[in-house]
């Protein structure tokens, strides 16, 4: 029986092939028979060589990775609206790939028995399936095939179209061929190029390329008045066309373009100018393929008009991070670049959110990144911690102003969530009224923390004091920092409490120098790298740098470097800390990339001997810095 939910399911499906060709009534009938399946992140939907399920799947929310072989290379990444697991059902064979939820996902399981008759009766559905099986892509209309301007069913290389699994050696050319005949007029060509947003038009005869016309040719020949606007294509086209086959590598493509001083290459079926044209490769495609270039990524982020496209770019950032780590590029540089990119994403999200607000902000404001993001140490995506500060307003206007910024903060938090930053479980986000305050209110709150340093206040300070401005008015933030320094000077007892907080993290090693693992809970038997190793360093750096009233150095490693400079007699230990911090950060990032998580918990038994020794070496440094903190701030005087 039709109901509200099956209606919603049908509404979703009708946007995606092959369901878009079914009529509403059939779709409604089909939708009723669907099972909605929830999959936790990393849970398996089916394994390679499993017997086929009586269903195939459509991704409603989240992402599913299709993997193959023992090395588990990702063959394809399915997201919203993508179909998977259908081919084995039609072919009546076992699954050739495994499917695993890459993110927390909701799937629609569609029973094959119900679906099959539609595939057989409806030619359009059948064709879609045949095409998608033949081309070995889950959806022949998606991505590379969008536009469907060529009818060549070629065996696309099995590498997924997603950039983050793209083998950087092979090039992704545009299959969106825009062509004209030799007799088309220059005016029509220019019109169509504008319409299709392309920079070059291929002139073909019987699908074979005979010439090419680029923006430059139009400029040089038509705009200069050399030829009239009615000139036929054959008069102004450049020929012969430089052609290649599709197995061209990026380097080859770059070389070819440089050699002939051209910006477009034509891809033909056998690589010669005498076979069918199947695609075009522009300089821009090469740039995109070289996507492991931070400058290109920054540009792409700044151009992003939708949060969804930022999410895609984030995947490339992760790929870039992986490459950097593989190539052993110094972690200092890696951290800088990745933080810069993350920062650009956050800024863009804020910009997009501001555009979405009905009015401009009533007063100036600043968006603060807290915690690891504030310290620019966030390589992997973790939870979001942030706050908002805005200019003081007259008392009568406070409620109204706060309401505006809370609304804005909510949009920004949602945007960050959408690109992969989970909500903070402790609600330390600007959309929480306690974390979205005017300058005056923040000063009061901070004074309260410093004057009454209980456990909670110290904890809150340790999270908040690593703030870094991500967007907005920098003066607001400077004033806040000044206030912190002034107040802490007046109440030095605060250092003692902050220092004692810094010493409260559990020890990384036991009596026999063995690594201590968690005893219960979700991460039983794994080592908590964040709490037992990174946090003691971060906390120590914070209290030490605060006692020196140094502002705007937020990264722990850099703080230690600054401390080494300020206290030459302790240089050795501070430099050791700086090194240990970077080493641990790298360690965490590698673990995180390996397991597609935050890298916080490490399975000790999976580490190599070398890794274990490296890890243990940092612990000596941690112990030394903790002793220094304890002695300097006389923590022993305080009951611990």
């Amino acid at each position, binding site marked *: 029986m039709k109901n*509200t939910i099956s209606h919603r399911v049908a509404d979703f499906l009708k946007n995606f092939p092959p369901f878009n060709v079914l009529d509403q009534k059939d779709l409604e009938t089909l939708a009723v028979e669907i099972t909605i399946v929830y999959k936790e992140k990393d849970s398996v939907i089916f394994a390679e060589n499993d017997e086929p399920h009586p269903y195939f799947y459509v991704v409603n929310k989240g992402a599913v990775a299709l993997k193959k072989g023992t090395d588990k290379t990702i063959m394809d990444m399915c997201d919203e609206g993508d179909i998977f697991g259908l081919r084995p059902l039609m072919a009546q064979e076992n699954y050739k790939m495994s499917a695993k939820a890459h993110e927390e996902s909701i799937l629609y399981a569609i029973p094959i028995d119900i679906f099959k008759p539609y595939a057989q009766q409806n030619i359009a559905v059948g064709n879609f399936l045949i095409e998608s099986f033949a081309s070995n892509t889950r959806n022949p209309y998606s991505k590379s095939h969008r536009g469907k301007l060529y009818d060549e069913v070629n065996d696309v290389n099995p590498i997924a179209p997603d950039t983050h699994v793209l083998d950087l050696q092979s090039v992704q050319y545009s299959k969106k061929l825009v062509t004209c005949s030799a007799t088309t007029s220059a005016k029509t060509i220019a019109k169509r190029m504008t319409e299709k947003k392309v920079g070059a038009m291929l002139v073909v005869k019987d699908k074979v390329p005979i010439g090419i016309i680029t923006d430059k040719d139009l400029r040089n020949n038509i705009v200069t008045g050399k030829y009239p606007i009615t000139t036929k294509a054959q008069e102004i086209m450049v020929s012969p066309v430089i052609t290649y086959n599709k197995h061209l590598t990026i380097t080859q493509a770059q070389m070819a373009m440089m050699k002939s001083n051209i910006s477009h290459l034509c891809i033909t079926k056998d690589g010669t100018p005498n076979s069918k044209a199947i695609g075009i490769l522009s300089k821009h495609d090469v740039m995109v393929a070289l996507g492991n270039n931070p400058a290109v990524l920054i540009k792409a982020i700044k151009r992003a008009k939708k949060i969804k496209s930022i999410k895609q770019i984030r995947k490339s950032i992760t790929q870039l991070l992986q490459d950097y780590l593989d190539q052993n590029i110094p972690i200092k540089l890696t951290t800088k670049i990745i933080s810069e990119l993350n920062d650009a994403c956050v800024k863009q999200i804020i910009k997009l959110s501001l555009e979405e607000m009905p009015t401009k902000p009533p007063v100036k404001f600043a968006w603060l990144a807290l915690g690891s993001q504030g310290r620019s140490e966030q390589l992997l995506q973790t939870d979001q911690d942030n706050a908002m500060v805005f200019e003081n307003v007259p008392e009568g206007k406070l409620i109204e102003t706060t309401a505006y910024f809370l609304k804005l903060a909510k949009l920004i938090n949602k945007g960050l969530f959408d690109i992969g930053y989970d909500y903070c479980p402790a609600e330390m986000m600007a959309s929480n009224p306690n974390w979205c305050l005017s300058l005056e209110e923040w000063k009061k709150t901070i004074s309260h923390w410093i004057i009454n340093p209980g456990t909670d206040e110290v904890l809150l300070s340790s999270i908040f004091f690593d703030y870094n401005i991500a967007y907005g008015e920098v003066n607001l933030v400077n004033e806040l920092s000044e206030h912190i320094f002034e107040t802490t000077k007046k109440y030095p007892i605060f250092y003692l409490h902050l220092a004692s907080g810094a010493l409260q993290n559990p020890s990384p090693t036991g009596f026999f120098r063995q690594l201590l693992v968690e005893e219960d809970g979700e991460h039983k038997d794994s080592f908590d790298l964040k709490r037992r190793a990174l946090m003691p360093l971060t906390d120590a750096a914070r209290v030490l740098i605060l006692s020196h009233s140094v502002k705007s150095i937020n990264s722990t490693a850099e703080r230690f470097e600054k401390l080494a400079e300020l206290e030459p007699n302790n240089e050795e230990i501070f430099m050791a800390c700086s090194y240990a911090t970077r080493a641990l950060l790298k360690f965490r990032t590698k673990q995180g990339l390996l397991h597609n998580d935050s890298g916080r918990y490490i399975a000790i038994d999976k580490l190599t001997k070398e890794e274990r020794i490296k890890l243990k070496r940092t612990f000596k440094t941690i112990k030394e810095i903790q002793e220094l903190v304890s002695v300097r701030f006389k923590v022993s005087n305080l009951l611990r």
Partner: protein
Amino acid sequence: MINFFKKKVNNYPDYWLEYEKCFNKKPIEDLSLVRFVVLDTETTGFDYLNDRILCIGALSLVDKNIALNQSLELFLKQEHYNAETAKIHGILKNGGASCISESAALEELLGFLKNAVIVAHHAIFDITMINRALERNGLPRLKNKVLDTSHLYKKTLLNSNVFKKKEHYSLDELAEKFDISKKDRHTALGDAYITAIAFLKIKSRLKGKGLLRLKDLLKMG
């Protein structure tokens, strides 16, 4: 004198006896086999005495699967009517889909529920509304075990002095937190769907803390 120990002789209809019989079976402990029914009611108001159920939506949930062909959406005929609530729910008196009488709706509901564990958001409200309806029809109260997503959700939150948990979390808040579309909010089945997805996500987060048994869930909410 009334004898409390004497079994009352009741002429309950067959469908009630059928429903009652389901509870003779030994309850299942393996969480992946337990059948949950996620339900939501839309009512004319919040007064247990005078207000009536307008609509009942229920989904059947086993393990992580919601089969849509096993769902229930009932619209009830109304005598008592409150224009204010109708505005929210968009269900007009006797309008829309085929409406059935309260007793017919209860018969369908009980037949659907069987001995499943009921999941609802602010469950006490929905359960009380249904129990009142049962009472009006001369029937005893629901016998099912009940889980409340608003209680369970609180268990997923951090226990920290730094951040104060709210007393209540609305279904809207849950939908936002878990990124569930609010498209069909304020229809019974739409709310039941949001509750179901929220329940699955809550369950997966609680599992992380090492809690897996139905017993534990029941203890929490």
